[in-house]
């Protein structure tokens, strides 16, 4: 069976740019949730989020490009740049090593997870259209607004000319993007895949979309950064964050042949759907468990070899409960002994990029033998009876595998097994 490895990752999180910055803050139990600033919030009831402030796109990309694209594409391009650089696939001028070569980039692909597209840009143009008229709409809107924009901008920036796909599966989007990248390598359709997710929903209209989704914590109306409380008895929904994470994936033999340093192995993956209700996840957790079971089977590991689980942890009480139930089904007798964490409580749920951020944290957790904590988990909710890693970091020196889960609205499930390099 083809082995798939990760040779680079690039992260933009509410803490700032870079994987180590994310890791240090999450380990330190530092919350990134704060009052939203920089845009009109008078129409919103929930005014906190995992917002990246003090960020200058022009530190990484040309001001000309930054003006033409939405923030979610900007995040995607920069995270991709960092991932390609770490993988040793960039020249000093930040072009990819295949750019300008004959047939360059034909065997390189890109898969992107996203949820809402570029609404900061689209909303501005909606206003221009209706307040000023059709000729006052930006000529760049079509390339900025649609969810495929990030993929297109990444392809353009790095000469990626193979398979290119953008997945929308709500909070599981970036997991499906990663799965398809792994499949494309396994099936021989590409030699290098860039995969990840990006989301920038902190603008007036997009925030209202989320408020109307019914998924946001009501406590967030108080402005408390402790509003996002996965598996806690006072959990009542999530808090939204922004950012992006991208990974370079290759077949192990290719990565070894070019002398790349390997961050982790993507050992198993699977996705399922509940097919139960358009919004609510199935209470029995059966199909969610099936995704985990298949991912473990693919990785040829038993539940006892899972060192830690990164849960979807939406903090929607029904979902926390059914996720716990699914973990019981998938892990069986081992379930009570496997640590479960949802570090996104500290920085928000990034929806289309949520799974990618968790994957990055899992890779770092395996590297350092440390399980990052779930903030705000003071007392487990009834029925949530697993070994949750709450409040502070837990050492796990011998950890060899993490299970990284994703679950979107209506039970779009995905599960990935990451193996220590």
């Amino acid at each position, binding site marked *: 069976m083809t082995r798939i490895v990760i040779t680079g990752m690039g992260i933009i999180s509410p803490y700032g740019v870079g994987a180590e910055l994310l890791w240090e803050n999450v380990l330190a139990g530092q919350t990134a949730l704060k009052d939203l600033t920089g845009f009109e919030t008078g129409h919103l009831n929930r005014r906190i989020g995992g917002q990246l402030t003090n960020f200058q796109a022009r530190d990484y990309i040309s001001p000309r490009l930054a003006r033409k694209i939405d923030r979610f594409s900007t995040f995607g391009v920069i995270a991709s740049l960092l991932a390609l650089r770490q993988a040793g696939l960039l020249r000093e001028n930040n072009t990819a090593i295949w750019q300008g070569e004959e047939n360059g980039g034909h065997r390189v692909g890109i898969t992107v997870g996203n949820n809402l597209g570029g609404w900061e840009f689209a909303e501005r143009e909606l206003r221009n259209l209706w*307040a000023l008229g059709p000729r006052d*709409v930006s000529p760049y809107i079509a390339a900025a607004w649609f969810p495929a924009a990030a993929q297109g*901008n990444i392809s353009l920036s790095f000469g990626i000319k193979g398979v290119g*796909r953008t997945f929308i599966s709500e909070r599981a989007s970036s997991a*499906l993007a990663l799965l398809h990248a792994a499949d494309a390598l396994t099936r021989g359709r590409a030699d290098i895949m860039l995969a990840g997710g990006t989301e920038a929903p902190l603008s007036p*209209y997009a925030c209202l979309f989320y408020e109307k989704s*019914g998924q946001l914590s009501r406590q967030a109306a108080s402005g408390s950064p402790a509003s996002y409380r996965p598996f806690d008895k006072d959990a009542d929904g999530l808090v939204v964050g922004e950012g992006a994470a991208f990974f370079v994936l290759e077949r192990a033999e290719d990565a070894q042949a070019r002398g790349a340093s390997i961050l982790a192995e993507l050992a198993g993956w699977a996705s399922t759907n509940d097919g139960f209700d*358009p919004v609510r996840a199935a209470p029995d957790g059966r199909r969610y468990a099936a995704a985990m079971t298949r991912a473990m089977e693919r990785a040829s590991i038993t539940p006892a070899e899972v060192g830690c689980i990164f849960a979807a942890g939406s903090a929607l009480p029904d979902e926390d409960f059914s996720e716990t139930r699914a973990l019981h089904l998938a892990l069986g007798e081992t379930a009570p002994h496997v640590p479960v964490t949802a570090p996104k409580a500290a920085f928000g749920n990034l929806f289309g990029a949520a799974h990618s951020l968790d994957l990055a944290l899992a890779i770092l957790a395996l590297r350092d033998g440390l399980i990052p904590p779930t903030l705000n988990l003071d007392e487990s909710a009834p029925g949530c009876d697993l070994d949750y890693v709450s409040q502070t970091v837990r050492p796990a020196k011998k950890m060899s595998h993490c299970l990284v889960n994703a679950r979107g609205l209506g039970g779009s499930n995905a599960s990935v097994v990451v193996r220590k390099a």
Partner: protein
Amino acid sequence: MRRVVISGVGVVSPVGIGKEEFWQNLLKGISGEVAVENITSSYLFKKIHFEGVRAFCEASDFDPVQHYVPVAYHNADRITQFAFSATEQAMRDALLDSSSWDPERAGISLGTAIGGIKLLEEEFVRVTNQGQEPLRDDNISAALYSAAMHNSIPLALSAHYGFQGECTILSTGCIGGLDAISYAYESIACGEHDLMLAGAAEAPIAPITVAAFDIINCLSHFPEPGGASRPFSLGRDGFVLSEGSGMVVLEELEHALARNAPIYAEVPGYDVTEHAMHLTDMSPEGRDLARAITGAMAYSCTKPADIHFVNAHGTSTPQNDYFETLALKSSLGEHAFMIPINSSKSILGHSLAASSAIEIVGCVMSLQAQRLHPTINLLNPDPECDLDYVPQTNRPFAFQRLLTTASGFSGLHAAMIIESYGREAQA
């Protein structure tokens, strides 16, 4: 690799809802265009004036009650209703009842570029007093999130039919339909699923969409609806925005045979490429589209002489039709001059992601009927588009294999090969 067949189709289009009406009107070459003042699906066009853009292709006859939309979705967004209608048609067409398939081995992949923009724009215009005031939550629709989050559509389908395999949106702009079908094809071929519903839906006829495409000169300004979409014609000046949905049931061959399913056609291969040149333009000479076509032939072990007919992307923009012609010549060589090529968009307009899925339904009908629908409005061919585009009238044509293509923003190209399934092989 396992063999994959198409065992059911469903379609919502400006020229017909349901495969028979759709196909008969394609054959007749009846344009689906209507004038902007006759648009009935959104009141917003009464409040805004577009200089120049006159023609749209609207599925004006669509009626959720009559066209198989479940009662729970009779007030849902137009795009969701389109998807339900086309899906229910495809499920019935494939003779799928709940006993004949395993829900855990059945998935959905759906393409859409824009999702529920109609509702999002109407609500924005209402609560901001036409963009004059800040946003406020003035009883804003509870459906706002499902309109903005495109996967709400396949999730609704999955829940309704109980599909428990993968459920996702492929958001690949104007190649979305072909891409979602090729994604499902490969998933079945590689053993991940036995049955998938795949296709696309789009309901993009909203002022913001028109503005977004018109500001970069993509839309036709032809004054007379009925003649605006004219692919490969001299003086073509852009595409005509359209709407609809095309869905197909894709099934692993043995699975289809075991339940004695109707088999329309077999999919032997596809390819998708990116050109990485420009966000909204094509690459020079259509070379990356040619690479997708070559890739699809390699995937399906066919050579140019095996391609009997091409259903082109044919948008009616000056750039696309010329570059697509070049791409066909460079990938098929001299053979490109010997085979018929048509553009469904001459009749249906361009429904973004949905168009390539609707066109695949048309391709399947064509293969069944052994007849090609015409490319209409092709009275004055562009001398640089010098292939046989089946101008003006349909024709009988005995063939076994076709190529269909799509291109879109973000530098995307897709090509798929579809062939008749040999019934004799069963005996």
